[in-house]
């Protein structure tokens, strides 16, 4: 249910990504190691439906060159995390699975993943993507794509200029004559702190405090004056305030309102672009405007591949990742099958010409990694619920403060 399977990238990473996009072309990375003869070896890979065709292509090359066999198992993306955790210890898990970097904490906690050695492929990957798959100094996966949400505006209503602040955006939205200046998904009564996070960080209230190296500590950063200021803002724009943020909106309603031209601005991810433009509105993707004065930093997520700690084919699995997926063709195929911002520099350079992609890249440049520490599992529910209550008119300060102390109690 969380659309936030998505992850994280760091601010630094985003900058690097952009640098990578504009930088000079990198040399062919795939080391032409001796082709192995893997006949008799069956590698099991879990993937979701979107990425299956892309992995199939890489798998075919692998099968032709090595004689090994790759068995692709299609799963719902939402099921992968739990199924992987539960099945790897029994010996029935796959050798490799696709996944989001925010699975990392729970995978490490469950002891189900092995470290990987990216080898020469590391040079071709955005550092931020590698950082996202790094836990306590160890790299646990092969990252391939970044994602982040951004402000999407209807250019027919409000033009192409990025609004500087929340107030600026609302003013422009109101002036456009649209039914709603702005619409944002709250997943109805469930709440969607992920989508709201850009606004929250613009008040300087991160979910967890980052240490000097950018790693998240388990210190909750949402409390205090900054957090209360965000809560007050949320209440003021909630259903008992201006009404711009409402718990009557879910993912589909949000996209329908925007697509039908009834809303001038929305905050969404690349996965919603198709729905948002289905009825022909013209869009521009911009960074999320600041509501609290500081830079609005949405969560950046990273997608990648994990190797099971119980894999009996660790050698072949490693080969498949660093020799068959770490190629321009395979990475391009992954992008074509499921367009997320590529972490593979040569492909990222190619696709950055697309204005929508460029818009999301710019937004992710301002983003922060979505925490992958296991503590995050206890946070979402309480966090979402408190936002819903405040949007619906509960007292912002006391509701928010209680949520922060509940979170602190839950993570111990």
């Amino acid at each position, binding site marked *: *249910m969380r659309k936030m399977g998505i992850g994280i990238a760091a601010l630094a990473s985003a900058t690097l990504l952009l640098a990578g996009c504009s930088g000079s072309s990198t040399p062919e990375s795939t080391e032409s190691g001796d082709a192995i*003869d893997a006949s008799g070896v069956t590698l099991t890979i879990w993937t979701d439906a979107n990425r299956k065709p892309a992995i199939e292509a890489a798998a075919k090359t692998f099968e032709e060159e090595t004689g090994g066999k790759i068995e692709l198992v299609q799963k719902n993306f939402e099921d992968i995390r*739990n199924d992987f955790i539960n099945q790897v210890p029994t010996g029935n898990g796959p050798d490799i699975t696709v996944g989001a970097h925010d699975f990392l904490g729970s995978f490490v906690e469950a002891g189900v993943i092995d470290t990987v050695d990216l080898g020469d492929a590391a040079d071709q990957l955005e550092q931020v993507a590698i950082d996202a798959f790094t836990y306590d100094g160890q790299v646990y996966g092969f990252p391939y794509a970044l994602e982040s949400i951004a402000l999407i505006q209807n250019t027919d209503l409000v033009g192409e200029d990025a609004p500087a602040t929340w107030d600026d955006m609302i003013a422009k939205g109101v002036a456009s004559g649209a039914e709603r200046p702005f619409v944002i998904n709250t997943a*109805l009564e469930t709440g969607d702190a992920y989508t709201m996070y850009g606004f929250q960080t613009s008040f300087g209230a991160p979910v967890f405090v980052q240490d000097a190296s950018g790693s998240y500590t388990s210190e909750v950063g949402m409390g205090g004056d900054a957090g209360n200021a965000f809560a007050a803002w949320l209440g003021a724009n909630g259903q008992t305030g201006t009404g711009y943020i409402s718990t009557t909106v879910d993912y589909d*309603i949000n996209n329908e309102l925007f697509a039908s031209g009834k809303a001038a601005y929305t905050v969404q991810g690349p996965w919603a672009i198709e729905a948002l433009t289905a009825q022909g509105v013209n869009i521009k993707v911009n960074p999320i405007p600041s509501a609290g004065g500081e830079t609005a930093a949405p969560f950046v997520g990273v997608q990648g591949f994990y190797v099971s700690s119980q894999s009996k084919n660790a050698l072949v699995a490693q080969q498949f990742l660093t020799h068959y997926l770490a190629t321009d063709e395979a990475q391009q195929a992954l992008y074509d099958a499921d367009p997320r911002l590529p972490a593979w520099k040569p492909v990222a350079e190619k696709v950055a010409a697309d204005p929508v992609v460029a818009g999301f890249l710019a937004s992710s440049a301002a983003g922060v990694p979505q925490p992958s520490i296991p503590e995050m599992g206890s946070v979402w529910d309480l966090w979402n619920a*408190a936002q*819903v*209550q405040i949007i619906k008119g509960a007292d912002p300060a006391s*509701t928010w403060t209680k949520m922060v102390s*509940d979170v602190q109690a839950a993570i111990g």
Partner: protein
Amino acid sequence: MSSPHDTTGTTTEATPPTPAARRAALPEPHGRRWNGLGWGFLVKLAIMAVINAFGLLGIVAAYRAESWVILAVAVLLLVAADIVYFTKRALPLKYLLPGLAFLLIFQVFIFAYTAYIAFTNYGAGHVGTQEQAVQAALIQGERLVEDSERYPLSVIERGGEYGLAINDDGDIRAGSAEQPLEVVGETSDSGAPAEVPGWTVLSVNQILSLQSEITALRVPVSDDPNDGSLRTRDGSTGTIYVSTMAWDEQAQTITDSTTGTVYHATDAGTFTSEDGESLPAGWMVHVGFDNFQRLFTDSSLVEPLALVTVWTFAWAFLSVAVPFAIGLVLAIIFNDERLRGRKVLRTLFILPYAFPAFMSALLWRGMFNSEFGVINDVFFGGANIDWLGDPWLARFAVLFVNVWLTFPYFFLVCTGAIQALPADALEAAEIDGAGRFRQLRSIILPLVLVATAPLLISSFAFSFNNFTIIYMFNSGGPAIPGAPYTLGYTDILISAIWDISGINGGKADYGLASALSIMVFIVVAVISTIAFRQTKKLEEYQ
């Protein structure tokens, strides 16, 4: 013992004869009259061959997976099946065995497994065995030496001992787990050593059949363990790693050599140091009644769970009583022959029942949306009634949806029961001067209740665990402020179990969820037993 071959066809005899007497009175069962091979026997042979094939397949699979309990059960079932179907005895079992086998596999096993999990801490951070937790700690503690080069590497073998050889700028260095790396020769190549003096270089194919040995192989760089050891992940390049964690099986401790911290294995399934720090990965252990205790003593859980429990009972009761009442009234009305177009109307009333419940729930969720929903727009003149956000309105809304979905069922059942009423009893009542209401109260209702009581009880049990509606309509929302696991005001016990299990993305706690399942099972079982006893009384009344 009742024989399924009772040719008289009666199943309710007031005074059953003694088994012996009855057996004498009956024709010999056909199973005993078998007289040679027939088509029937051949068909049986074919079916049993298939069953045996699948059974053996399962046994072999269980043996390979080393699941001894499953193996034992599979052997037992297969032997039982063969004995039952190839003897002339055990006639009732020939009919009962398939059902019993499925009951065992799909009900008893699942229940027993749930009960087993309820006494463990299975959940986030405790999913595997201690051995796997140790392995995870070692993996997580093995660090790449920062300035380690990437060496072209070959896997080598000497008298059954495996080793690694690297090309270190023209020097061939080789070693094994026992033997630290030493220079054994030179090469002018830049690639992996093709020949290593004193060792046999393994081909790629040989390596692939030795994957686990080779990925586990660590060749010390020197006699000093702090220099790290060489390992390979792909069989063609080598890098130097330092292991920071050491496992002492005797002492059941893991020592972090960089900080000197000693982590002890605890009864709670974690490696914990003196000052309370734990390693990320733990393992599954038995925790006795801890989970059950938590359900009643964990202060953050008790209050939401009490709310959920009360609502579950109210929900289950109202989900039966209200649709039953509506269905009964409609059935009585539509049973009146004076009503025109009965057939058409009856069909229309059954429609909600014919529609998939989860789709209906989704549709209703949209219709109850306070801003965009049809209900507020059309029926309440655009009023802003917060159907999904207010605890009581949300409860009403989800109950309303369930009533809408289930009343056709009771309508059908009651129609059937009413049409089966003995006409003579009703006629007699009429002659005796009983009015319409009196007939309803004294004849129709009791008789309909006798016929439908078992259905009502099973509907209660079903509603008690009606996860679909709750989950599809609003996932149990709105959330109870501060409650863990997103427990909400319309959550019933089964959806609370779902939330606690963490399947939808939260922090999983299967042990606690299983303990709660067991409690729900006990509650439903007790209520059903009592209710069925009461039904018996109704029958006596008849």
